[in-house]
């Protein structure tokens, strides 16, 4: 009796293991040492992402490593690593049967006498062993090569058994300031070629640490200081052009808003600032308007100014002893979501961009739901991310704009201040899940979480729009 049940259980497990396959894809998540993130099962569907193989080559290692990591961080591919190096790619043995558990990947390398790389690799373009890669579960293979001063990323379509596209770029020398962004843009072009959608490799995140504003690439590289004084700063916000940003700085008992050019570091105080506590700046998508909060005697209210002409203060809310703060524009510029304390505790409200038609946005149970703060409208317009007090700690939530329903995204530790990547599926946020507060990135589609910056004290992240060209190339 017991034996039968145990046997049945074992059989069931075997079925689960088989159906959860290809199990060999799963280690592809751990292809880099930074990735110590944990998965939480939101809508994770294993195996639905196309497999991507990076073909090994001599040279261009840093480019290849960056591109494969960008593609991995896009969370749109299963990155397949080859155990046997070039030997697999060059193997001409007959392809193993599709879908079998006998694919030569467990460290077993097909015997190959001709393991030369140079000329053989060149001639292999367009004549890859497609059935082999198909058997490995790959839908795409990426080959990065150099021809003179041009770097070529050749994307192979495995099921179609041909080259999908060759992306050419003249990369700056490694170590030059523009090198990494140029490689990131190449990765985005590959992603675009493979899936017809835009990536987020060439993006950056502004954040605050120890009262100063910093900038960091989305892959965690090239962290640099961008605030220019020793005064305490908060709340960085990107302009839609990706070349400017705004932030608040404490100065002589007031909160000043500054508008700064990313490339030159030149900054100007925003019109009418310096008279009160101004904070939480946010740009309209057309770059014409900045909305912000101003705390005065009777409370905190929302205002806008024309940022192009740095003029024309306009008041959007009249709180009458309630607070209205943290504005965020919808991507069409028609609406502004914000925080209001009019129900007692802060909750998420929405209004037309001219201040009319103010109404509750994210539903809550009066007396039950905790404070809700830090809203940010997703670039696709469909969602608003925010954080909410749940049992004394903060968790990231997402509001569905159409249905006005909310779902809780995080549950481990304290999680706050979410900011959308331009693909509207990744969020950077602050979490103490590792023991101290640091920046993390979550992919809403897979639930995959990775650290962006493993340094304590980083907070208030703001994810850039797509950076089409390096900011340093603009005057």
């Amino acid at each position, binding site marked *: 009796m017991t034996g039968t049940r145990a046997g049945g259980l074992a059989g069931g497990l075997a079925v689960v293991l088989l159906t959860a396959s290809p199990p060999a894809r799963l280690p592809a998540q751990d292809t880099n040492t930074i990735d110590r993130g944990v998965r939480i099962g939101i809508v994770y569907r294993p195996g639905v992402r196309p497999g991507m193989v990076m073909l090994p080559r001599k040279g261009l290692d840093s480019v290849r490593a960056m591109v494969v990591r960008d593609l991995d961080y896009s969370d749109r591919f299963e990155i397949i690593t080859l155990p046997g190096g070039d030997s697999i790619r060059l193997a001409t043995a007959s392809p193993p049967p599709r879908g079998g558990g006998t694919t030569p990947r467990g460290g077993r390398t097909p015997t190959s006498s001709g393991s030369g790389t140079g000329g053989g690799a060149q001639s292999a373009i367009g004549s890859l062993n497609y059935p082999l890669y198909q058997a490995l579960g790959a839908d795409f293979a990426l080959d990065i090569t150099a021809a003179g001063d041009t770097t070529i990323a050749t994307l192979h379509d495995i099921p179609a058994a041909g080259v999908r596209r060759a992306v050419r770029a003249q990369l700056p020398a490694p170590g030059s300031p523009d090198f990494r962004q140029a490689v990131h843009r190449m990765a985005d072009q590959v992603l675009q070629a493979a899936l017809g959608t835009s990536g987020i490799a060439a993006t950056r995140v502004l954040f605050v640490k120890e009262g100063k504003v910093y900038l960091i690439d989305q892959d965690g590289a090239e962290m640099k200081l961008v605030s220019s004084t020793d005064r305490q700063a908060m709340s960085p916000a990107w302009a839609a052009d990706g070349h400017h940003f705004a932030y608040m700085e404490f100065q002589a008992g007031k909160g000043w808003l500054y508008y700064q050019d990313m490339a030159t570091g030149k900054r100007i105080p925003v019109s009418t600032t310096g008279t009160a*506590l101004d904070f939480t700046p946010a740009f309209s998508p057309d770059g014409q308007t900045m909305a912000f909060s101003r705390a005065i005697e009777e409370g905190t209210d929302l205002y806008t100014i024309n940022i192009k002409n740095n003029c024309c203060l306009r008041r959007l809310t009249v709180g009458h002893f309630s*607070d209205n703060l943290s504005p965020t524009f919808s991507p069409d510029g028609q609406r502004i979501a914000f925080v209001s304390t009019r129900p007692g505790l802060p909750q998420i409200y929405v209004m037309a961009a001219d201040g009319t038609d103010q109404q509750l946005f994210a539903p809550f149970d009066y007396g039950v739901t905790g404070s809700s703060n*830090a809203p940010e409208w997703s670039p696709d317009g469909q969602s608003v991310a925010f954080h909410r007090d749940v049992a004394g700690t903060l968790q990231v939530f997402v509001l569905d704009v159409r249905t006005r329903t909310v779902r809780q995204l995080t549950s481990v530790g304290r999680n706050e201040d979410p900011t959308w990547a331009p693909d509207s599926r990744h969020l950077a946020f602050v979490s103490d899940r590792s023991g101290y507060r640091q920046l993390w990135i979550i992919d809403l589609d897979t639930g995959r979480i990775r650290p962006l910056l493993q340094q304590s004290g980083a907070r208030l992240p703001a994810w850039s729009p797509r950076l089409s060209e390096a900011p340093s190339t603009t005057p």
Partner: protein
Amino acid sequence: MKSVSLLLVIGLAAAATAASSCGGNPPPAQPTPNADSAAAAAKARQDSIDAANAEAARRAAEDSARIARQREADSLAALSRGSEEVRATLAAMIHFDLDKSNIRGDDMGALDQKVAILQANPDLRIRVGGHCDERGSDEYNLALGNRRAQAAKQYLVSHGIDAGRIETQSWGEERPLVDGHDESAWSQNRRDEFEIISGGDNIHHP
């Protein structure tokens, strides 16, 4: 004690001076066998009396100057002691409940003392800084800190202090008084601080 004995000395000296100089009650004249010698004796006596009088007056002047100096020093010390007290009373923080900005009952006494000090020192101008603990949202805490600073200002204004003498500022959770992640630290960090902006050089006791 010292000043008492000094006063005594002065009193005696003054009495002696008065007795000798006013002449209202002269000593009985002694019979003199020789007019010249008698006159000489009288002159000598008068000289010694004058000398004693001069000495007494000099000492009295010295003493009174010293006393005046001592008094001034004593009162300055007292004044400065009082001024320290007044400053401490003025700077005493008030505290708030979690996510609240209303003045607590146990802080009203502290604010009443500040009202009295501000009334006694009409040139005094202060800044109220509102602070929060780390638990709330970073940016929301700027609004909450503003409310806390405004709450204290409103209290002072409603008790007769001119609003123009009170500036407010919010620091949100950016400047914790106590590092720590428990209620003990949080409760100390949810506070209003009071600092003198101007008019604090010669501060008076209410």
